[in-house]
């Protein structure tokens, strides 16, 4: 009674496994093809990168930069670096401290609540100390 069922089941299993193996085989081959395509692409890109690096170095060669700086002097005003160009931090004209406009009270609001007087610094340090 059980035997024919078992035979049928194992036959189906063999077919399923065969189908799976077939698909895996083609999937592997496709993956390998993709890898070799990618490797070709990497090699091409690497070559291109090397070429671009060479070109970058060629375009940035000091002789050319010097010529360009001379040609564009009226626009850029670039000069060779000289010792007197070193400065001190104190020589830099710093922007004036920002004037905080919202510190001035020009539209008073009604505020209610507790005021912790000990945390407030006096507006005029010379003035009376706040107890």
């Amino acid at each position: 009674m059980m035997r024919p069922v078992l035979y049928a089941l194992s036959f189906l299993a063999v077919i399923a496994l065969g189908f799976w193996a077939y698909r895996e085989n083609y999937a592997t081959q496709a993956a390998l093809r993709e890898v070799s395509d990618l490797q070709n692409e990497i090699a091409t890109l690497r070559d291109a990168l090397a070429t671009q690096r060479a070109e970058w170095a060629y375009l940035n060669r000091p002789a050319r930069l010097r010529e360009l700086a001379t040609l564009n002097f009226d626009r850029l005003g670039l000069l060779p670096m000289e010792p007197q160009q070193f400065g001190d931090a104190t020589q830099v004209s710093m922007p004036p401290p920002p004037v905080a406009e919202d510190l001035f009270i020009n539209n008073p609001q009604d505020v209610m609540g507790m005021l912790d007087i000990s945390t407030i610094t006096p507006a005029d340090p010379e003035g009376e100390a706040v107890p």
Partner: protein
Amino acid sequence: MTRTPLRPLARILDARAKGENPELIERENLRQRHDAMREKARGQAQFRLTLLAACFFSAFSLIGVRMGMLAGTEAVEPRNASAGIEIQAGRADIVDVKGRILATNMMTHALYVQTRDLIDPPRVAAELAAIFPELDADTLLRRFTDGRSFLWVRKVLSPEQMQLVHEIGDPGLLFGPREMRLYPNGTLAAHVLGGASFGNEGVDSAEVIGTAGIEKFMDDRLRDPAQSGQPLQLSLDLTVQATVEEVLATGISMMNAKGGAAILMDVNTGEIVSLAALPTFDPNDRPNNPTSGDPSDSPLFNRAVQGIYELGSTFKIFAVAQAMELGLVNPESMVDANAPMYWGKHKIDEFEGHNYGPLLSVSDVIAKSSNVGTAHIALMIGGERQQAFLKTMGLFDPAPLELVEAKGAKPLRPAKWPEIVTITASYGHGMSGSPMNLASAYATIANGGIKVTPTLLHRTAPMMGERVMREEVALASVAMLRRVVTDGTASLGDVPGYAVGGKTGTANKVKRGGGYYEDKVVNTFASVFPANDPKYVLVVTLDEPVETSGPKPRRTAGWTAVPVAAEIIRRTAPLLGMRPQVEAASLDGLTAVNN
């Protein structure tokens, strides 16, 4: 299994009744039993042998089939192995200390001809000659038709030229890929880089080999496939090198010189920040080695390393430093400087017949560059000790630099060392060295007396050298060099904020046949800056300079090499990140030896 009894009772009784021997029955049964046992054992043995044979057969056939498969199938590379990023074919790049490219590779193509496949040789020859002006149509045609089957036409093609060749459209014209060495900065640092060319050539690739300079010296490292991903890092700084070359070229043209050299070296590590030699060449299109004439007239000649010149008064500091090291003098000691001085039949004179004597302090001997004073100091030291000291300073051996040219540039010195040589060598006459030798010797003094070995490669580890002189002696020597600039022969060398110290040297050029030229000199300025804490050594050498702004031509280093060196320092020191400093009122290193 049922065991048959050997003496079945029924048969025995029957036999006894018949009067037969019952023993026979027993024997008969015993025989039958033994037969059965033997049959069984044989069956077992047969089975084992067959099993063993089957095992061997399947094992051997498995191996055989596998071998057959390996032999019968074509070899394929494993396709799923991925190449690492570091694996790259070709020659390693050369970069400067900040990683900017000095030499790299570029893919181009070589053009070759398979003459059997050419369809119309005369037309191809004519069109190739039109594309490449250096080719001649008749010569090409003769080569196409003289029976050879293969012919190189050009080693490298630009993409535009390649397209033009494609447009000829003849199947006999073929391209082979080529990796070409490219120096994007043109003539910059040409003497260091040297050049490269093709070695063995095949259709698919060609070997790139270094022909000179560091390309040849480091050829094995640059070609090593395991290290081709890592660029070779030099100690040169591209910006500084460009500036030094620019200033030196201007200086050479202003001083009407034939050529010049400049070496800028870090005194603590021995790294060469800039090495310039002019006239120069383009390593992308390296000229051929000169076959005739003076090799120093060729642009390939590296004056900084190969130029063996008498370095003149720049040597005086070595005599003074050694005398201080030996405790013979201190900077304040007075020495005899009464000129002219007579030694045997030789007369030792000062520049332009001056007399700084009768007595001069050691510090003034250097500041005023007194030959007679130095001669007396050298006589105190003596020839033996002088030679030993100059040797430890590396002035007798070729500079150990990573350039193929360096090994051949051995300093010249007299075979014998009589006292007159002791005298002349003390002020740099009668023996010669390269500017490179001089730079490393000055770096040793500037490095507090610890020997400095020059290198063109970026040093990652600190340099360990032997101590050549005491630190106080080195400090006092640098202070004396500073005095040369503040109140001596190199007053034009002062750069505000950088406390330059140095020593001038002027030597007449040696004639080929012997003797000296009257009006051909080599001017050298060896300098150290900043003198209060030496960081760099700069040696500038000008070949046959003459300064013509005054009423009569001036050929001393103070008027030629010194202003060039000063301009180099003024321009490069900011690039090296050195901020000008307000100098202390006086350098008190002069008294350091006393206490």
